[in-house]
């Protein structure tokens, strides 16, 4: 976790338990939390501290102990929620007033939940299964939602910007050419106005005064025209250099970011993916990199050009005529400020538009996927009315946007015209004067032309803040992923044996997803190569967690897992997963042909083997009914196939990979009886000669299992073959079996 994220900044609370509180507590602190409400649900502060034997309440301001009592007095801990916050009631007996009540907002809920869990453990006379660092727990849990929503690296804008710009390093040449292109095209843009002035002062006026013969004037005029033409050509050549180099460069940076992001995503653990929303990850690879491209390709340079233009224009104008130059330059900051203010106002109005537009898209995302329900309930008219109502609100809001900007820009232009008029007012008398203060017509024309160049850069600079904010926001989101580190990595000399036998051993294995609440509580078992094990038990008991630990999607926090007698951590993760096949309840198929899906990960496999695997999986028959057979394109996630068909393709995929360890996680639970029979038949062929762990709720699907493990609340409650387990009439398995038998009987009736 990034240490820069400060609790104080976000919630105004301390980064950790103050020293003065620690000094008052003699025992080692196991956990502590902050309670930010008082018993009237008013914002306040106090600390809750738990040690091995005692529980303390410390006043948030005076930091003095208010209450402390022995944990063995506690009989029960209850958390209650109300609209104003949460209340943790610590009871000594149900019929007595609580020992203590602690009030807090949702910010403290995760940490208070852990305190509750710890106290409940202690009430039962148990201890936590893991060593925990109370400071780290407090800090990371309080900030967990902010980190989830925002990013771990979101605090230092300057650092993020520099880091983003460091991606330009491989493109130095392009960057230099692009910058030269930008600088030259900007400076060259100043020349036409200068030439125009020159033509008037050096040719037109001397000719009209009779000083310059027409031939000479025309000759010189053509030369200046040629120079003017050359200027335009040069300016466009350098503009092309800038646009070409910078847009390619921006694309290159976006590509590099996408490559790095995607490769990094592949290296991250399942833990990362379980905590992030898929849409959020996808948008970082797609739209966020696109925004960065936009910023690098155009934003940086546009702003640079605007600044160069404004500075050089001011310099040129002041050099040409400092009095008129100052009249023109001095109001520029005021104009910039008015654009900035307008931008702020537009931001606020656009926010309203965005909100109302979101309402409109919500109606669409509600009704289009649910069109069947709309039609079934004959609600077209109601939905049309609802959409039209919101559409009108959106239109009205955008009308407000148009009202504001259409008022502002003519107003701004009027201000610029007023400045021009002021320049005219000061210039006009001087045009007719003689002597030092006389202003030449050519200088004045140049001036007028230069003045028209002032508006665009002012507008670009006014929009700089918005552009920068958008790019930084995207960069933060991208770097958050790049800064995430996989916990499961290969050791330096990871093992890749030529063959895996398939022996699995769990020794006192403990595991918890959140580091506090154990899912597996020191379980022990041995599975011999070729054995088929059924895992049964209630939901949340830890069955699927066992399979995830064997596939090393997570590492156990306590005890060990051995594969063929070797700790699982010693194997190469990729090799291990190659030797483990999985058939899940919801098989995942990719967009592509059927054969590509069966041969996933084995691009060189022969067609015969693909067909053979499909036959064994009872899939060949239905595949051949499709017009394009194995070349049939199955849509995204295989949506064009039925659940049973998808499952049989995933079985064929597993057969082709020929894994030594096979995990079947509720493989037949989502299909009808006839399809289940076909899948079961395919599975029966698949399990032969492999170590199999089959998670199932329907005990009938485990008829081939050599042994059944009943997993209950993180422990192996019973082990044995089906018949043996049924002999224990007090056992979980017996009850489970009878319940299912009853259900089937009722169903049959």
């Amino acid at each position, binding site marked *: 976790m990034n240490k820069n994220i400060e609790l104080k900044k976000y919630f105004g609370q301390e980064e950790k338990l103050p020293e003065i509180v620690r000094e008052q507590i003699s025992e080692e602190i196991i956990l502590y939390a902050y309670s930010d409400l008082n018993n009237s649900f008013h914002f306040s502060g106090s600390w809750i501290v738990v040690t091995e034997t005692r529980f303390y309440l410390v006043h948030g301001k005076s930091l003095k102990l208010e209450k402390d009592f022995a944990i063995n007095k506690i009989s029960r801990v209850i958390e209650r929620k109300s609209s104003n916050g949460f209340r943790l009631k610590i009871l000594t007996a149900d019929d007595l007033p609580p020992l203590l009540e602690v009030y807090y*907002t949702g910010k403290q809920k995760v940490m208070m939940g852990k305190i509750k869990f710890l106290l409940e453990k202690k009430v039962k006379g148990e201890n936590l299964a893991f060593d925990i660092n109370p400071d780290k727990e407090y800090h990371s849990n309080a900030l967990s939602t902010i980190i989830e929503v925002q990013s771990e690296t979101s605090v230092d804008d300057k650092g993020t910007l520099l880091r983003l710009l460091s991606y330009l390093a491989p493109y130095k040449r392009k960057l230099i050419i692009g910058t030269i292109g930008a600088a030259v095209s900007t400076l060259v843009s100043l020349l036409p106005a200068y030439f125009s002035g020159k033509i008037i002062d050096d040719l037109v006026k001397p000719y009209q005064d009779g000083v310059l013969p027409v031939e000479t004037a025309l000759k010189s005029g053509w030369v200046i025209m040629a120079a003017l033409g050359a200027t335009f050509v040069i300016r466009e050549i350098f503009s092309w250099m800038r646009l070409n180099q910078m847009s390619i460069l921006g694309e290159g940076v976006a590509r590099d970011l996408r490559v790095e992001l995607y490769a990094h995503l592949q290296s991250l653990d399942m833990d990362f993916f379980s905590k992030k929303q898929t849409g959020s990850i996808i948008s970082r690879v797609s739209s966020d990199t696109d925004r960065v491209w936009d910023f690098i390709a155009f934003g940086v340079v546009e702003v640079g050009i605007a600044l160069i233009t404004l500075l050089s224009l001011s310099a040129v104008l002041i050099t040409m005529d400092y009095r008129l130059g100052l009249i023109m330059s001095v109001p520029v900051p005021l104009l910039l400020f008015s654009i900035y203010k307008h931008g702020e106002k537009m931001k606020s109005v656009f926010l309203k538009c965005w909100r109302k537009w979101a309402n409109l898209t919500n109606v669409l995302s509600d009704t289009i996927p649910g069109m069947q329900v709309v039609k079934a309930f004959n609600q077209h008219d109601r939905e049309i009315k609802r959409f039209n109502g919101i559409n009108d609100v959106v239109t009205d809001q955008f009308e407000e946007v148009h009202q504001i900007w259409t008022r502002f820009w003519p107003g701004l232009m009027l201000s610029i015209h007023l400045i021009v008029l002021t320049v005219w007012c000061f210039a006009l008398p001087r045009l007719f004067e003689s002597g030092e203060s006389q202003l030449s017509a050519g200088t004045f024309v140049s001036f007028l032309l230069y003045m028209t160049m002032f508006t665009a850069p002012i507008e670009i600079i006014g929009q700089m803040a918005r552009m920068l904010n958008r790019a930084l926001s995207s960069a933060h989101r991208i770097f958050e992923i790049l800064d995430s580190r996989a916990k499961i990595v290969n050791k330096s000399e990871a093992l890749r044996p030529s063959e895996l036998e398939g022996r699995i051993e769990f020794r006192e294995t403990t595991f918890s997803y959140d580091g506090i609440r154990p899912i597996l509580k020191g379980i022990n078992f041995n599975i011999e190569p070729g054995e088929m094990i059924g895992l049964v038990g209630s939901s949340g008991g830890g069955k699927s967690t066992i399979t995830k630990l064997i596939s090393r999607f997570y590492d156990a926090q306590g005890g060990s897992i051995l594969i063929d007698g070797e700790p699982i951590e010693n194997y190469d993760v990729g090799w291990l997963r190659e030797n483990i096949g999985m058939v899940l309840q919801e098989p995942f198929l990719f967009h592509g042909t059927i054969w590509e899906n069966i041969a996933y990960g084995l691009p060189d496999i022969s067609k015969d083997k693909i067909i053979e695997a499909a036959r064994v999986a009872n899939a060949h028959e239905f595949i051949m009914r499709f017009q394009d057979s194995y070349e049939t394109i199955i849509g995204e996630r295989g949506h064009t196939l039925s659940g049973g068909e998808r499952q049989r393709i995933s079985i064929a995929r597993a057969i082709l990979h020929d894994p030594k360890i096979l995990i079947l996680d509720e493989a037949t639970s989502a299909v009808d009886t006839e399809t289940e029979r076909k899948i079961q038949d395919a599975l029966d062929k698949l399990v032969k000669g492999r170590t199999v762990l089959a998670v199932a709720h329907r005990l009938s699907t485990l008829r081939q299992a050599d042994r059944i493990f009943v997993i209950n609340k993180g422990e192996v409650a019973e082990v044995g073959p089906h018949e043996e387990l049924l002999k224990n009439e007090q056992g979980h398995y017996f009850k489970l079996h009878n319940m299912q038998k009853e259900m089937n009987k009722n169903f049959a009736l």
Partner: protein
Amino acid sequence: MFKEQANGQLYFKGKEVTLHPCFPSQDRMSCISILDDDQNEVFFLKSLNELEVEQQEIVVKHLYIEELGHEITKILEIVEEIELRKFLVETRSGIATFYMRSEEWPNKVRDDHFQFLDIHGDIFYIKELLSLDTKSQKRVSPFIN
């Protein structure tokens, strides 16, 4: 049936309970679920008229205690942060800071009553927009109007 203990807690038939209106924003005074410590429904009060006057007063008092969240009386600052919108507000319960996701908006409950659900699930609300001072109204306007 309902009793208020000296510690201010509400009891129903000797058990500590809390009141959970089915329609907390639209109609708090009817269809109230009475839940015990284990969140089991011990009684369902369809209408306050089912109770004696004295009992009604106790229930109404507790319905107000279990309000709709923290009532905002002043908006001190709204800051756009990355992916978040920070609200610094004055409430009847004191000064508070809360955060909403940038793409989430306050919920208009009725007329000018708005509810803000922060990222941690805490509820803040504006009872009557027009009762706020002009600056507060101006600050919050882009998010609710």
